[in-house]
């Protein structure tokens, strides 16, 4: 009974710390909201307005038909038509064009008689990701034209369908980044804030006083991290609501499941925060360690911004031990595909196991400080 009062006293005290530190509180609450907007508009991997050059030495009806196809899309804008490919280098270098479609003389002729007629697509791949995407879009336009020529067999119809989906000008990247952003926000609030608040008490000396009190180490930790659990959840809900209002990001699956998984991932991050603060001598070091040890992997290796599939093999292997990677997969499944626990139980088990291991490790290293 008294014990519970002691714990409640600790939670109350931590809440006071948080509420009185207005600046930090504002940062905690506003940063995620701002980030949704920043990421939503800045990290879009969608492509629009590709400036296209056409090199058409001997125009004929077929080249015109294909050129019209490009012109008719929302994505491509033909900014230059040339007879030879001589000044393409200059156009690319000056950035006037992103892409060039190069025909050879007698295109219609070859198409009618010889079968496949070569068309060259040249893409500015200074940014490999957008380059690949532009290449794919251009190829899709050509293939669409091609399948239109051959009449619509079943295979041709399939190609056309997939092309249309890709051209659908939704902000698909917003859908993809919001689950990652939730992981990021949870990491910052849970890992960073607990690490800072624990190492602050270590630094000021109040931790010692708590440690010589009748409170057990696990009670001290529980009392300290409980408020952050709440703040973390509140921010997740805010981010979800904002993403929905501004970008129309869907939540197709169960909101309760998403929050429960969010709570689990918050536990993972809290454990990491405790572990790091127990192993580092000062607030500053703890902060750096959290930034390097949790936030960086969350951004780089979780699939938040860079798809896991496109990572080099060693990094892809490394991503397996990043808790955020599993949470992002879970959150994407629930939000975008509407999947439930039946499909996501494996990821959940992995995350739960990681949390248990990290909690055990963090408790041990917290205790070893007492020796």
């Amino acid at each position, binding site marked *: 009974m008294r014990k519970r009062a002691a714990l*409640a006293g600790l939670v109350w*005290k931590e809440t006071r710390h948080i509420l009185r530190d207005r600046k930090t509180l504002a940062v905690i609450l506003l940063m995620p909201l701002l980030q949704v907007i920043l990421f939503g508009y800045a990290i879009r991997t969608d492509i629009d307005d590709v400036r296209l050059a056409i090199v058409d030495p001997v125009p004929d009806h077929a080249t015109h038909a294909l050129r019209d196809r490009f012109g008719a899309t929302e994505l491509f804008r033909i900014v230059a038509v040339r007879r030879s490919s001589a000044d393409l280098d200059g156009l690319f270098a000056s950035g006037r064009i992103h892409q060039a479609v190069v025909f050879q003389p007698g295109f219609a002729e070859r198409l009618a008689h010889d079968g496949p007629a070569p068309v060259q697509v040249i893409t500015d791949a200074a940014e490999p990701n957008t380059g690949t995407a532009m290449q794919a879009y251009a190829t899709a336009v050509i293939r669409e034209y091609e399948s239109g020529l051959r009449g619509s067999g079943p295979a041709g119809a399939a190609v056309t369908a997939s092309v249309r989906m890709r051209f659908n000008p939704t902000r698909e990247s917003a859908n993809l980044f919001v689950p990652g952003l939730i992981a990021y926000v949870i990491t910052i609030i849970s890992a960073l804030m607990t690490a800072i608040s624990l190492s602050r008490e270590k630094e000021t000396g109040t931790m010692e006083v708590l440690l010589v009190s009748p409170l057990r180490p696990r009670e001290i930790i529980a009392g300290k991290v409980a408020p952050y659990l709440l703040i973390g959840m509140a921010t997740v809900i805010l981010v979800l609501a904002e993403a929905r209002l501004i970008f129309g990001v869907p939540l197709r699956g169960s909101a309760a499941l998403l929050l429960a998984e969010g709570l689990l991932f918050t536990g993972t991050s809290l454990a990491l925060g405790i572990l790091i603060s127990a192993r580092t001598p000062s607030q500053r070091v703890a902060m750096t360690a959290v930034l390097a040890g949790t936030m960086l992997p969350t951004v780089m290796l979780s699939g938040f911004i860079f798809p896991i599939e496109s990572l080099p093999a060693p990094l892809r292997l490394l991503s397996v031990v990043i808790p955020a990677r599993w949470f992002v997969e879970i959150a994407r499944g629930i939000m975008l595909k509407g999947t439930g626990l039946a499909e996501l139980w494996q990821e959940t088990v992995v995350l739960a196991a990681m949390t248990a291991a990290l909690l055990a490790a963090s408790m041990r290293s917290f205790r070893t400080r007492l020796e």
Partner: protein
Amino acid sequence: MTDAAISARGLTRRFGDFTAVDAITFDVSKGEVFGFLGANGAGKTTAIRILTGLLAPSAGAATVAGHDVAREGEAIRRRIGYMSQRFSLYGDLTVGENIRLYGTIYGLTPAQIRERTGILLERLELGGQVRKRVASLPLGWKQKLAFSVALLHEPEVVFLDEPTGGVDPVTRRQFWELIYAAAERGTTVFVTTHYMDEAEYCDRVAVMVAGRIEALGSPGELKAPLGAATMDDVFVTLARAGASRGVR
């Protein structure tokens, strides 16, 4: 041994090759003001950390309030108060909030907390400052408040680790009055210091040099054999003797 508030037998703590506390043996009786003297790095803080259960001893044994430090940490922690050499209150909480927090941590009822808060504030003449944040108080007040808060749950033994560091002489004097008052109420006071004038205020003093207790007794007993006029002289003589033996 049960009548001793603190009892240490060959208490030792090593960090790797370094022996911070080297087989110290002493008893502190109930209600005594026991001073632990030594230069920085002499092992005072390590000793206090062992006795408060923050560090496990490498060898030897000790009891505090009748309980073994190595095995009965929790029982000890209920019966002791502690004030570290660093400031031990929360600066962003008010005076009243700090008192209430420590009260609940030590399992006091709200009624007890209210009652003792009143007594404490009156004793410190801090009545008008309950709603002030502790960070805004002068250092002397902070230290006195920290000491009073460490006594809030009426511990049997209170450990003070260099409580008067950086405090002006007048406040130090007031601080010692608080210590005497606590001892009169039956609390055993274990205090470390490197202010030699403060050593004169203690009932008995242990002088630590390089992890060992070089001398133990009342200030008078320590001064007489060395022909020293002040504790300062006693300390310098003992420290030099320790150094010349090449202890460290």
